[in-house]
């Protein structure tokens, strides 16, 4: 029985992140109706943000001063002093860059066990059961923890599609004294890469290229297909590292997460880091010479052939179809 789950809220670019919303949904699903879900916001949130926290029963806003700065260690310290008095049983943190700092630090500060790389959770009479996904997704570990304060780092994906009813949404504010803030780490500014016009997260059709494209010149193949489909080209990390596409076109864990209607994966093997960025696409078509490539476990349709043979044929078939219509 979990009485209270606390979810630290990540606000990025003045918005509550999608991952935070997913974690809140997870808290409701795992905790059940009896559980109180507390969303903890660091610093005064922008008004639109609060609307996204409706799943929570309580919205705790910690303020003022620098609390809103994305400095995980200081925020973890501030939070750690309040967990006991809040009567929190479990803290759910999303596995983002910020969360990967916040969760372990928080766990250490309150001397609580940490469950990282958590894929899904279950509440039992004895405590909490979780499944952790490690070794680049190849190994699963089922774990169990007794009744005590614990911190969980949740991977994105498992709870993304859950529809949960809104909670009570009571807003509460709490003051943080300046001395509480650990000033040994400060945030200065965001450094943005050179921005392009195209935001691939807004595109409905994406044609992604991976190592299998072999050479930069062969990008035209992908570009032609994208054009025929009315979409744009993006790529996996190796292609960006090579400099064949700008970083704003990178799909994956360290790039963008995209959810297009149609995602073509050309010459992409399907490494977990890439898959994480595109697995929620509605329709995934993969083309890879190796029929055992892991991408075929994620794709809806697959073609085990040489993309240099198949892609021109697809383009022609599209053109032919267009002419028929």
């Amino acid at each position, binding site marked *: 029985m979990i009485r209270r789950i606390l979810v630290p809220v990540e606000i990025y670019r003045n918005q509550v992140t999608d991952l935070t919303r997913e974690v809140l949904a997870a808290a409701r699903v795992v905790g059940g109706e009896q559980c109180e879900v507390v969303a903890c916001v660091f610093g005064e949130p922008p008004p639109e943000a609060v609307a996204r926290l409706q799943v929570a029963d309580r919205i705790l806003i910690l303020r003022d001063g620098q609390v809103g700065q994305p400095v995980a260690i200081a925020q973890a310290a501030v939070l750690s002093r309040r967990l006991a008095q809040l009567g929190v049983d479990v803290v759910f943190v999303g596995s983002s860059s910020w969360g990967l700092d916040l969760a372990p630090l928080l766990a250490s500060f309150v001397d609580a066990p940490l469950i990282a790389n958590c894929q899904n959770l279950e509440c039992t009479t004895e405590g909490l059961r979780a499944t952790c996904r490690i070794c680049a997704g190849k190994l699963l570990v089922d774990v169990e923890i007794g009744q005590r304060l614990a911190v969980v780092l949740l991977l994105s994906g498992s709870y993304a599609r859950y529809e949960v009813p809104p909670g009570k949404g009571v807003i509460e504010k709490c003051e943080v004294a300046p001395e509480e803030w650990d000033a040994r780490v400060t945030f200065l500014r965001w450094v943005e890469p050179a921005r392009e016009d195209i935001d691939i997260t807004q595109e409905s059709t994406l044609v992604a290229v991976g190592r299998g494209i072999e*050479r*930069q*010149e062969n990008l035209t193949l992908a570009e032609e297909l994208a054009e025929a489909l009315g979409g744009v080209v993006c790529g996996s990390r190796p292609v960006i590292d*090579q400099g064949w596409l700008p970083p704003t076109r990178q799909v994956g864990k360290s790039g963008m997460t995209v959810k297009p209607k149609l995602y073509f994966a050309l010459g992409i093997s399907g490494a977990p880091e890439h898959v994480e960025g595109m697995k929620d696409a509605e329709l995934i078509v993969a083309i890879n010479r190796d029929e055992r490539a892991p991408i075929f476990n994620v794709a809806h349709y697959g073609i085990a052939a040489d993309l*240099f043979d198949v892609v021109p044929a697809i383009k022609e078939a599209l053109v032919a179809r267009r002419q028929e219509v």
Partner: protein
Amino acid sequence: MVPVRPTFWNIPTPSEIAQYILGLGVAIFLVWAVLRHIQCWRKGASEPLPPLGRQVWRESIRRLVRFVLVPERLREDLYGFVTHLAIFWGMVFLALGTIIATVDWDLFHLVLGGRLLSGLSYKLFELVLDLAGVALLVGLLLAIIRRYFWRPARLSVPRLPRDKWQSAVILGLLLTVAVTGFIVEGLRIRAGVVLSETAAPATADTGDLAEADQAVTVAATVRAWSPVGAVTSEAFRGLPLGTVRRLHLVIWWIHAIAAFGFLLLIPFTKANHLIAGLAHVIIPRQDGLPSAVSGDGEATPLRALTWRQRLEVSACTSCGKCQEACPAHLANNPLTPKGLVWGLHGLFMQDVWLGWKTLADSQNEQLWLSDEALWSCYSCRACEEKCPLAIRHTGLVVALRRRLVDRGALADGLQEVLVNLQRYGNSLGQSPRKRGDWTRALPFSVKNAAREPVEYLWFVGDYASYDPRAQQVSQTVARILHLANLDFGILYEKEKNAGNDVRRVGEEGLFEWLREENLKLLKGRPWRWLITSDPHSFHALRHEYGLGGCETSSKGAAARGERAEEVGSTLVTVGATENPSGTSVTDPVDRNGDDNGLRVRHTAELFWDLLSTGRLKVVRKLGRRVTYHDPCYLGRYNNVFEPPRAVLKAIGCDLVEMPRHGPESFCCGAGGGRIWMKDRPGSGERPAEMRVREALQLEGVSELVVACPKDLVMFQDAIKAVRAEERIRVVDLADLVWESVTPTPDNPATGYG
């Protein structure tokens, strides 16, 4: 009176003495210059000579004939061949003539009071030298026409400022020497004719001058023996004797200065190929790669070379024949073998002459010796095959690449591969446990040579084990060996990359480690033959592993079937010649195919053995028109040209040769580690694509036969790139053999076009 050579006629004593002094000065300078060269050569890293015996010196003499006396490498370039022979032999005879004349005058006449050249000997002397002078003149004119009027690319590209002034000056000086030589002769003969027409001597002096005048008069009577001189003398008909004498002295001095000038310039210009080239050709050498020079990644490129490499670099004449053949250069990569060697030549000359700037082309050197240029090399040896001075460009590239590796300045994509090789023993980053998985598709099991003895130990290689396309060929080879009832096996997961390309890439330490690991399996195991279908592995195993490098094994022991047990147990331990810190001594290599107990065979050789001895029988003749691509490491490196052709003939294929075949085969572009490196953007058509186009030109040929797994992969991709899948396909020799020998015709090889 008996005609004698009228040496120093009309030359006043001060001039004569001045000439002797100058001559002595030039000689001393030349000796000193040669010593300085030797000093700078020796600054290079050490490289041991092969053990010196009679055989080795015979080799030197053969090379002297092949490269110096009648340069065989020029034979395809008939124009160049004639030019060089004319200039070379012209100069040789003229030089000999000068020496004989000196001996005749200084020794015989001044000291002994007699004459060496008189009468018939004098007449012959005159004739030969005239002809030599003509040859020289003709050669020079041919050279001038080609260099300045026709301007072939190999001479004018890339722009070599140092070469430009050197060529002009040397040709100019030699031309001056040749022309003034004839003018002096003509003037001398004219004087002799005029004197013979006047009764009394024209000068008031007595004694020597009178004697000299008499000699020149007599000599003029036999002017028919100096035909060119005689003709030239007609040009001065009508000139008074005094004018002739004055002109003669002036031209004589011009001739002397031009000759001395040329001699003085030898150690400063490419003319020092007379010294360095000769030395390089004659001095015996190891054929393998020289040992690694221990780490000094930042030093100048020259520091990376051994003394032998410095010697050969200073022999370069920037003729550019290497460049014409280089696939990297033809594919618009920044590499030019000519620039590479010429650049090093410049650095060497700067070193000799204490940093004199004009002796190097520093701006261009950045380009020729740049990292990018060095990484562009395919180590195919097409350049070495063409070089008239037998310079070994690939050895230079490897030496310089070692420097880059030391600094960590690796080409794109190479680091990952090298790390994979260290971790997994293969360049593809695949699990070593899966190395033998390709055997699973076979209907029989393949022995594990790491666990049980086999007669034919098959070293498969990375690509043949892991690449799906090459795996099919490995399966076909296995079927053939099984059909021929051979006792064979593979090493499965214990086999590691043989290291050939690792060595060419400059990672000598990694090569040594791979070799050690493989030798642990190969030594002390009683195999009779070590076979492989991969020419790269073949080369390393045959020459760089110290297997069968038995000084004790005679040619006879290598013959098939003889003294099997003895041959199987005479494996040489390599460890004895290496010191513990890992730097190795050059491995002994026998390049000319005289199998020194060489029990390493390529499958093409093996197939020929099996077919010619009847162990494999041809069941059906294929009757198809095919062309064959000689792999660099099988053909050029190891002279295995005939066996695959014999196989094709035996199985009934009609072989049509591509223009560049045999030793001139055009590299597919996988060698030198290039198959591991990422391509340069926009570098134009790749060598494999050029080669496919070459094959497409042949009438009625629809199959390109290869004998190397890398060729297979490269040409398949190239055929797709040029969109020629309908017209030609790549097929391995093994596939054709199988098609020909398999008893059941429903297993045809399908090829991988």
